[in-house]
């Protein structure tokens, strides 16, 4: 079963028995949502909160929707519209609170603190690079290449024409390549 068939099957199961199918829905999409949100927010803890909240909101919506509507949902783009809204709201509320101390979330169970530090440095570097892109371009690049969504799906999520999304992604990648080149990063 390919990915979109699997999602269609999941939508049918969610329509039939929400509580029984919901754990599979979370497990199927949590890594992709978290990976994307992580590159669109400022901290790992924040990305975790937003991912969690996106799933909780999705559940509340699925509870309300008639079965017919749930069955026809394109689950992944739909979940992403919720997650992206949460990212935007978070960014807005942070721009109103200009100076926020950057607190690093340390996982107590992490075996190696230096590994943590390396991840944190890499997070910061990528955040700085991605923040040089405008919001729709950054979202398109992340959804296309970190999350792995198709242009049609991204177009639906961002409510922009697929052609525009495609050229945004192209422009974003070119910009990132220039940045990486300037930093002296080599393949």
């Amino acid at each position: 079963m390919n990915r979109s068939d699997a999602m269609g099957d999941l939508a049918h199961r969610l329509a039939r028995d929400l509580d029984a199918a919901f754990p599979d829905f979370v497990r199927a999409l949590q890594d992709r949502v978290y990976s994307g949100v992580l590159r669109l927010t400022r901290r790992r803890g924040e990305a975790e909160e937003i991912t969690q909240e996106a799933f909780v909101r999705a559940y509340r919506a699925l509870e309300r929707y008639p079965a017919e509507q749930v069955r026809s949902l394109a689950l992944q783009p739909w979940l992403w519209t919720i997650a992206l809204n949460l990212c935007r709201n978070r960014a807005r509320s942070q721009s109103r609170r200009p100076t926020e101390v950057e607190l690093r979330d340390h996982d107590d169970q992490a075996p190696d603190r230096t590994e943590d530090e390396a991840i944190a440095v890499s997070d910061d570097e990528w955040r700085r690079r991605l923040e040089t892109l405008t919001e729709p371009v950054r979202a398109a690049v992340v959804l296309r290449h970190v999350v792995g969504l198709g242009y049609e799906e991204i177009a639906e999520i961002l409510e922009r024409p697929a052609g525009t999304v495609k050229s945004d992604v192209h422009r974003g990648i070119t910009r990132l390549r220039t940045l990486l080149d300037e930093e002296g990063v080599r393949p």
Partner: protein
Amino acid sequence: MNQPLTTADVERSLAGLATSAPPHLADQVLVATGVADQVATVAGPIGPLRIVFGRRGVSACVPDAHWPDHLAHHVGRPVVEVDALPPRLAAQVERAFDTGKLGNLPVDLETLSDFQRTVLRKAAEIPPGEVRPYGWVAREIGKPGAVRAVGSALNKNPVPVLIPCHRVSRSDGHLGEYAYGPEMKRDLLAAEGLDPDVVETLADRRIRYVGSDTTGIYCHPTCRAARRITPPHRVEFRSESAAEDAGYRPCKVCRPAA
């Protein structure tokens, strides 16, 4: 070899940013939505108990030694382990153990039938250290013919100990079976101050009721009123009709019925 980066290199780097969600994220989502319940271990009256709880209250109570074997039977939802009960629930559970009564502890009996709920709510009224026969529960809920159904409803009690199905005896007065074995039933009653051997001995002698010749009232043998009767005034009966024929009236507290 200072080759410049290609578009494909950048795309590969971005793809490499895909990572796993933090380990507890899914559990936290499932708990927040009420799709999953949580479970913590507490000290029960005769040993550790697993208390499973969700949005609507305690949904299962399982002796530690039987965890998780009996789980599927009791809870249809996935369960997430936590270190302790939330403080308010912990206090309510502790009070329930101390008093032998549910009190304001919320229990989730949502998945049960109306009949099962009614039976369990009735069983919850039996005071600690006392027992009533299945037939008493059946009559009290207005279904005197449903003695067997009462027995099977009690056997499916998702929250034993908290809802004291161990305080319901066979109609012949013997303590009888228990979902976690007859020994546990005896131990729970003993912890509440009732001597299980006394109950069994009376049942062996086919004594179902005791009365007081000073008040002319007859009771279930473990009724707190019956236990105040001093030996010289204590009269034993094998049936309601025997007591009625002797001119005794039923106790208003324990409402005797076999």
